[in-house]
């Protein structure tokens, strides 16, 4: 599997947004404030693998997803999908690539056209991408509905007549219509109740296995990532700070931010009442990313050199790497970070 070329290869991806300026700042010719949403992201993803991307609001995970499908133009770096640099293609060729990459969004209330029946919503991508003729379409629509566990009777229904879970099933069916190879799920279960969330998560895992799909699964919920992903990338202020097999990253976190996220995650276990927050302070604005290590302003293990070096990826285990100069950092998951003494490379466990 490792010898095979990855389906998706992202290298040094950068996306910045120019913000709107006040009249005064435009007249005084100050440089426009720039928001760095994605700041040098690299990863590769093999076929039939699911990569979970986890991060808090403003970490750049959604902008990253949009760059992958070229819904926004990146400012730097490359996205290579199955040997094709999607930044270098246009027109028909871009459309051909886009058919193979489909997105499921968070909110099934806004991602479906309220005036289109479920049947019409599913037939549209079939026609647009030339996957099925007008004649074949009804049979294919029925197949898609069956695939996502909906009765074929919903074909004539409108989105408003469906529950949130049913709507998300329709959105998934629609994304599967053009027979994609890569599915990008952007907070696809975040708007759903627990009982429905489990149904949709199971469905997504089942579909990726059955159809041999590759998936990028974006979520702010660690527990959800834990239940679907093979590998995970933790994002903070536009950068992946730690990545690796989900079993390793979640049980043996190497970046202080990952450890803090895991400690802050409320597990349904009544005895684990913590009274000390896992992490202090607010995150800095993406308008002014701190120099050196971007996490240093909130890190309990910060050292002087953290302000000077933007830490490169350091490999801690096969496929597991973290951007931290005080590696290995390994508190047990759930443990509160109270020990401010940094550990140096090679010291301790």
């Amino acid at each position, binding site marked *: 599997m490792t010898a095979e070329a990855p389906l998706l290869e992202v290298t040094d991806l950068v996306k910045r947004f120019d913000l709107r300026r006040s009249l005064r700042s435009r007249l005084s010719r100050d440089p426009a404030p720039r928001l760095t949403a994605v700041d040098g992201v690299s990863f590769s993803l093999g076929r039939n693998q*699911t990569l979970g991307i986890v991060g*808090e*609001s403003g970490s750049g995970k959604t902008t990253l997803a949009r760059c992958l499908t070229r819904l926004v133009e990146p400012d730097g770096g490359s996205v290579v999908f199955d040997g094709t640099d999607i930044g270098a293609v246009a027109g028909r060729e871009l459309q051909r690539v886009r058919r193979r990459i489909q997105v499921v969004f968070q909110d099934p209330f806004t991602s479906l056209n309220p005036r289109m029946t479920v049947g019409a919503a599913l037939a549209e991508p079939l026609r647009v991408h030339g996957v099925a003729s007008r004649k074949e379409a009804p049979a294919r629509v029925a197949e898609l509905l069956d695939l996502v566990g909906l009765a074929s009777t919903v074909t004539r229904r409108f989105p408003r007549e469906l*529950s949130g*879970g*049913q709507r998300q099933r329709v959105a998934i069916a629609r994304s599967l219509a053009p027979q994609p190879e890569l599915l990008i799920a952007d907070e696809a279960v975040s708007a759903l*109740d*627990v*009982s*429905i*969330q*489990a*149904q949709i*998560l*199971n469905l*997504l*895992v*089942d579909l990726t*296995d059955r159809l041999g799909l590759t998936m990028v699964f974006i979520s*702010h*919920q*660690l*527990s*959800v990532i*834990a*239940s*679907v*992903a*093979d590998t995970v990338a933790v994002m903070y202020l536009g950068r992946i700070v730690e990545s690796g*097999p*989900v*079993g390793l*990253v*979640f*049980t043996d976190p190497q970046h202080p931010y990952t450890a*803090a*996220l*895991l*400690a*802050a*995650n*409320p*597990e*349904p*276990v*009544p*005895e*684990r*009442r*913590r*009274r*000390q*927050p*896992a*992490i*202090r302070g*607010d*995150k800095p604005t993406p308008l002014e990313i701190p120099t050196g290590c971007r996490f240093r302003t909130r890190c309990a293990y910060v050292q002087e050199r953290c302000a000077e070096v933007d830490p490169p990826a350091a490999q801690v285990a096969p496929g597991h790497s973290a951007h931290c100069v005080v590696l290995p950092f390994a508190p047990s*998951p759930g443990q509160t970070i109270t020990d401010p003494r940094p550990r140096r490379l090679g010291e301790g466990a």
Partner: protein
Amino acid sequence: MTTAATPEARGPVLLEVRNLHTAFPASNGAVLAASGVSFSLAARETKGIVGESGSGKSITLRSLLGLVPEPGRVIEGEVLWDGRDLLQLSSTELRAIRGREISMIFQDPTSSLNPVYTVGEQIGEILRVKLGMGRRAAQERSVELLDHVGIPAAKKRAGSYPHELSGGMRQRVMIAVAIACKPRLLLADEPTTALDVTIQDQILALLAELQNEFGMAMILVSHDLGVVAQNCDSVVVMYAGHVVEDAPATALFDSPRHPYTVCLLKALPSIRAPGVRGRLAQISGQPPDLARLPEGCPFRPRCPSSRDACVTVTMELETVGPAHATACPFPAEGA
């Protein structure tokens, strides 16, 4: 109706809710958002109310202080506070209790704060109106309160407008407003749902700290079982307007008895089992439609252990253990 917890075991009862019914008009009569809700709360206790959307948890909380949004109305029940029934009070009497003895914080601090006043002015207003403080004293106390809830450079921040603060800071301001009069009970409606997980963690730690300091009880409404597990002494689980289970947190999470609670806990993904790739125990079917509830137990159509007798279930709470009650006559085996 029996309330689950035995108050003797937990200290004096602070608040007792009996048989609360809150209704909203609908095309075919009325739907009951809260349907015979009963529970009690001891002084200093933290009680969680957990449930999915439409379960009636927020409406129950709002009913306690007469804050049910129009056209909803409390149609039956008692809310006993200091020997008085809050539901029988006039709006003037209720206003005297709100903010002073019982405070409330909401999910979205952005819409609860006035955008055209500084946060200092908004806290000061509460102090002047509720405690009759002078302008100068109120101003000073506002800064103290902001400092108390962990806002750095409180004096400077008192002059900030809500939009100049982050979501976490705004929620801290809301908490400062809520504790301004040192209430004995804080009602918190999804206070951390809109926040990032690390900020949620900070806010929950702050609430626990303030509770300890003021000896304040709290009712925490949340959809997040993890938040409830780590912050509550006891928990009420709601489904379709009914309390289905009421238990100490340890009992509820270690040996849930109502099939809905059992299913809900099993459906939760966990960071403790990473890389399992799916196969969460899912609850079949769709959430209930309050206008078309089945006869008997509302969870019946989705329940893995439903039987014929479930059609006649009255949803009365029956005691199944110490301070532990469930509305299911055929409860799951306790662990």
